[in-house]
């Protein structure tokens, strides 16, 4: 090679390198878009919190692989709120005043979220909710958007009682844990039952630490209800199903379940196995053909791989896709608005329908879904100790809503159990 060519080549390479270096430096100098949140990583809500966080992390990696937002990388700042309400005000103040985050996501569940609502309202910040229940009803923050498909407060109970009524049910028994979420469900169930003209023949709250349900179940059985609406938490859900298995529930019962938390988590489902058969319970996502949308399959492929490393719920149907959907909604809003202006983002989220992996989402004025996306599904043909069975369709048949229906109800409950 001639000396001049070599010199020319070197200079060109140097200039190119310098230009490239400068551009990439300029790109790198762009600060990331910070999304701040607290999440239950320890304490009672940790199982759900971690799965939800993994869903959001999968979205972050996807969006960064696509080049980020507004030419900036997306970064998550997450602190542990220990599942407690008393931790979140300080954490969110740190996120806002010290970390100076651009967007806020709410922690998983109602209790840690409740103390934040006045704070974000006062600061004029948008808050993407994460599976809390009616947390904005008293505060009335117009920049709150819940990712959970609850919809109007009573839609949950009405979907279940509607099924019961269609199956010929006239009387109802309520069994609810003495805890925030379960009591909210029981309250709406009472209202809906009255509206539908159903008679409440049994209404019992039990302390959250109850492990032995045979006494309560015997009393319930004696009331001979047609429908049994249960609002329980994971440990008691298991206790109640074990009790039902031992002493039965009576031939009258056409529909059993409704609001049992825990029957959505892989480990609990694997543990209960065949005891689940016949139970009709709420859910948010199930591997039924009607519930797949654009990106859903790809999401679960990534989630399933990463869940093993992260040691979280291997199925992750309940919360994780909704964490991803929160990210998708904020992504669409930022892209459409072209800035991080909170008011403009909130206006966009309020006025448009958003395409997500859990289906299209439209918000009502209170920041909840305009139309409920909660499904009621019946467990069928479940075998003991087998996690993988829950990945195939037909194990949880969707009965409600009609547009997602994948089967019909098997009644009475005692027959469906077999």
């Amino acid at each position, binding site marked *: 090679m001639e000396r001049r060519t070599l010199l020319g080549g070197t200079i060109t390479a140097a200039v190119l390198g310098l230009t490239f270096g400068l551009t990439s430096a300029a790109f790198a100098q762009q600060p990331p878009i910070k999304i701040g949140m607290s999440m239950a990583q320890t304490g009672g809500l940790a199982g759900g919190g971690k799965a939800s966080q993994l869903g959001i992390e999968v979205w972050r990696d996807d969006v960064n692989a696509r080049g980020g937002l507004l030419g900036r990388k997306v970064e998550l700042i997450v602190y542990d709120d220990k599942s407690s309400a008393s931790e979140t005000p300080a954490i969110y103040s740190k996120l806002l005043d010290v970390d100076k985050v651009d967007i806020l996501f709410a922690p998983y569940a*109602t209790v840690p979220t409740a103390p934040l609502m006045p704070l974000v309202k006062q600061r004029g910040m948008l808050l993407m909710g994460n599976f809390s229940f009616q947390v904005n009803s008293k505060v009335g923050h117009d920049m709150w958007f819940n990712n959970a498909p609850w919809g109007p407060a009573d839609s949950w109970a009405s979907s279940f009682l509607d099924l019961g009524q269609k199956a010929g049910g006239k009387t109802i028994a309520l069994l609810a844990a003495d805890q925030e979420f379960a009591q909210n469900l029981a*309250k709406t169930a009472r209202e809906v039952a009255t509206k539908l003209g159903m008679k409440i023949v049994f209404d019992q709250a039990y302390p959250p630490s109850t492990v032995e349900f045979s006494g309560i179940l015997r009393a319930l059985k004696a009331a001979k209800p047609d429908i049994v609406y249960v609002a329980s938490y994971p440990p008691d859900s298991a206790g109640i199903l074990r009790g039902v298995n031992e002493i039965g529930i009576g031939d009258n019962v056409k529909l059993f379940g409704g609001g049992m938390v825990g029957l959505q988590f892989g480990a609990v489902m694997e543990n209960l196995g065949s005891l689940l058969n016949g139970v009709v319970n709420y859910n948010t996502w199930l591997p039924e053909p009607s519930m797949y949308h654009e990106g859903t399959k790809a999401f679960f492929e990534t989630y399933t791989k990463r869940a093993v490393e992260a040691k979280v719920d291997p199925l992750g149907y309940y919360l994780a896709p909704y964490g991803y959907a929160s990210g998708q909604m904020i992504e669409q809003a930022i892209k459409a608005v072209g800035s991080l202006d909170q008011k403009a983002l909130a206006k966009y989220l309020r006025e448009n329908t958003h395409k997500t992996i859990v289906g299209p989402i439209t918000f009502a004025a209170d920041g909840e879904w305009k139309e409920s996306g909660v499904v009621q599904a019946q467990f069928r043909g479940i075998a003991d100790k087998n996690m993988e069975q829950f990945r195939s369709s037909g194990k949880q048949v969707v009965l409600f809503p009609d547009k997602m229906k994948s089967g019909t109800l098997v009644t009475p409950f005692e027959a469906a159990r077999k």
Partner: protein
Amino acid sequence: MKRNGVFFWVGAAVFLIAIALMTKLITNEYPFFAGYVILQFIVLAVAWSILGGHAGYVNFGTSAFFGMGVYTAVFLFKVAGAPLLVQIAAAAAVGALMGFALGLLTLRMQGIFFSIATIALTIVIETSITNWRYVGGAAGIQLQRPPVTWPFSGYVQMLFFVQAVLVVLAVVVSRYIQNSWIGRGLQALRDDELAAECTGVPTLRLKVLACVVSGALMCAAGAPAAMYLQYADPSSAFNLNYSVSTLAMSLIGGTAHWAGPIVGAILLGTTQQLLTVTISSEVNVLVLGVMLVLFVVAAPEGLIGLLRRVRDKRREGKQ
């Protein structure tokens, strides 16, 4: 007044002035949110050590008193929109009554039996509140703060200052008890209750008094928490974490001197706040556990005890 006393009162005044200046000079709200929690734990730890330290009666019911303070405030706010000071004063009165009842009912039990009874108290009260729909019941209750009172610029700043005043109040009471006949009587019954009784120390009266004072302060510390969180639910308000942390703070700081719980609460409270926003995972629970074990093994009398031992050894060395 003795030199020690002058130092104490000057120190307390300087502390309050510094807190007041902070609320004026610092615009970032985070230090107030985090600082409030630390101050709240100082009051709880100091109050706990009045019974737990001086009298040696280990009370696991801190969360019962704290939660009762929270719910007294919630009730008064809901019923009459009572201002913060009324909420705190009423909570103190309720706490004193609760302490009196607890004292009468349980102080005839000693050692571990008393401790178990205090755990039962938490459960009984939590269950009652859970079933009381007027204050939100199991679902909890959201509260809207009233406008802030002059001269404060924000509600959190005001709560921070109010909690600081409670700290001073608690420390003054605890120091007075330690240095007066009450403290000497309590120490006597801690060492040997029977011997104290025989030498004319009115043990039951003293224990009930300690219970009343300790309960009033704990409840008062809980009252502002309702407005701090603007939300109350039984599982958070009666969280056993308050009992465990308070106990750990007093033990780590040392219960033999009124300053022990303050040192413990500052150390542990700050560590907890820092860990929450740094490591922030299961590890922070582990770090606290390890800290507690280390202190129990290496400094059974707490930091104050450790300092005393070091000072005594130095003196011996000089002689």
